[in-house]
């Protein structure tokens, strides 16, 4: 064996704030400032407001104190509590429907062939380019009682009043949210499915797996992390949504975003509004924590 001499390891350079570090700080500063002004401060302010209780004495004078009354109100007052439940339900139902539809389309785009698939791959993105206000108004004229669809059905012989109430009802919110979120979820799931290489599917077929078994044991688990991220984002979008429930939702119960605005501007109850905002924030936080954990797991892999 030939002998080798090793050079002494280089001495570590002393750390100091050099030019490149300053440049790094300068690059981070604007976004940090933005986050502070538009995210951190409002969040802190909303939380403090939500713990502020306004009392009114008999003479009509206001007094303020710190307390959890607003939170008790949210979970004990029937209308307010219903709003929370309604928000969560709408989010869960919309996400479930979008996920089922988007996953089917993404599967067809990934594994299907032929002109139908090519056609589908071109049109499914269209809603992505239509603003939610426009979509909501379109849904109103389209699905309202005595609207376009109802009129069409009556013309072919359905009796008047047989068309279900969709607009200004929970169904209106769900249908419009589904319509709006479908392309994004499909894009996301398609890219997740594209990441699964053909050989992983082929090797499963080779050991004897049927299409269903490949889906169940290979495609679904491999796409789960990406799919759950999509679900998280859509859940966030629906929970914090305003335009669609404002234009298409019922008067009661209301989704939290709508209710918040009413309490803030119509009822002059910024304390209840802030509390509702914090509830939305907490619901989002659950989703966000989940997202971060998924990302972390991915990196560990």
């Amino acid at each position: 064996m030939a002998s080798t001499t090793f050079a002494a390891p280089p001495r570590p350079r002393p750390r100091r704030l050099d030019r490149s570090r300053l440049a790094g700080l300068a690059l981070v500063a604007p976004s940090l400032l933005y986050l502070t002004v538009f995210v951190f401060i409002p969040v802190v302010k909303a939380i403090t407001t939500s713990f502020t209780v306004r009392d009114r004495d008999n003479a009509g004078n206001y007094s303020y104190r710190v307390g959890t009354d607003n939170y008790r109100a949210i979970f004990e007052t029937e209308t307010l509590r219903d709003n929370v439940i309604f928000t969560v339900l709408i989010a869960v139902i919309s996400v479930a429907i979008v996920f089922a539809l988007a996953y089917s389309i993404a599967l067809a785009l990934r594994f299907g062939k032929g002109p139908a698939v090519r056609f589908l791959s071109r049109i499914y993105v269209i809603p992505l380019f239509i603003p939610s206000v426009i979509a909501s108004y379109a849904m109103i004229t389209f699905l309202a009682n005595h609207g376009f669809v109802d009129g069409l059905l009556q013309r072919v012989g359905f009796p008047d009043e047989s068309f279900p109430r969709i607009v200004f009802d929970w169904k209106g919110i769900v249908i419009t949210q589904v319509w709006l979120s479908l392309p994004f979820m499909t894009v996301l799931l398609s890219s997740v499915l594209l990441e699964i290489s053909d050989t992983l599917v082929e090797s499963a077929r080779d050991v004897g797996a049927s299409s269903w078994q490949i889906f169940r044991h290979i495609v679904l688990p491999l796409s789960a992390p990406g799919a759950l991220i999509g679900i998280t984002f859509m859940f966030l979008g629906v929970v914090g949504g305003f335009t669609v429930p404002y234009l298409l939702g019922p008067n009661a119960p209301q989704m939290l975003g709508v209710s918040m605005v009413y309490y803030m501007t119509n009822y002059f109850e910024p304390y209840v509004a802030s509390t509702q905002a914090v509830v939305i924030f907490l619901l989002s936080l659950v989703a966000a924590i989940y997202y971060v954990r998924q990302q972390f797991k991915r990196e560990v892999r």
Partner: protein
Amino acid sequence: MAEVELRGVSKYYKEVAAVSDVSLRIPDREFVALLGPSGCGKTTTLRMLAGFIRPDTGQILIDGKDVTDLPPERRPTAMVFQSYALWPHMTVGENISFGLKLRKVPAAQIAERARAMLDVVRLPGVEHRFPSQLSGGQQQRVALARALVLGPKILLLDEPLSNLDAKLRVRMRDEIRRIQQELQITTVYVTHDQEEALTMADRIAVMNRGVIQQLGDANDIYDRPATSFVADFIGQSNFFRGTLRRANGVTWAHIGDERVAVEPVDGAPDGAHVTVSTRPEVVEVVRAPEPGAFALDDPRLVNFGAYQRLAGRHPTLGPIEARVPKSFRLDARPVYVKLTRARAFAEPEAEMRD
């Protein structure tokens, strides 16, 4: 185990034949390598055997049973992919036992068989690791175990070593051959690496342009190439163009106003245009003129470590190379070469070296 047969199998993509009328019979326990450059149809042939591609014409038989229309999941074949194709969300143990689980084998037996198979590929005790925690060579062993655990009749390997580094490739080569011998399994191995094919396979099918150019063992292919393509693709050869002439029981290739004795050629008339090839290691080098020896102009030596290569030019024949020992020295004396064991191929010139 089993015998495989391809009968007149073709596969076209648009108008182009990826595989053209290939017939091949592989007896039980034989290790056959499909060897050729990229795009020669070797992988398409293998994927037709596995069932991933349906041939446009012809039949595929396993043990005499027509499997042409069977999908891969219903064929008694197992494939090892170039990229290993291990499922990243499953542990090594789960990867290997997946096929057994689908077949509803009892759990205790599954674990036992998976463990036994990891022993066969000499990778015991990694059941609970994920594929990403293994090296490339280890992953390839797991892929092999996953394919073999189902007890397939035919083992198909698609360039299984091309993602490994050179040293490991040589080791895995011996491993795969050892496992094949141990399990006595009929094996089809696709590769573009002639060394792999020559060292591992019982027989080699050299493919080009969707056609099997030659089928034979390492000696047939190397010493008696059937076409100029085989002579060129396997090892190295000197090539000349000439015309065939027979005289006094000797077959000659006339090249310009020179002539070279060649091995007898069947089925080509006198006057046929031929491609003549001879390997550098059978070219004899002499330092004095003698009959049949060609003077080499401008000789140079290239050192290959284990041997040297002598390269030069003959005014009529063109460039000629010969393998010479390391003790060989160039000096003032002239250099002559004798082209022994030359072979002549009567074939359209377009066939040659592409």
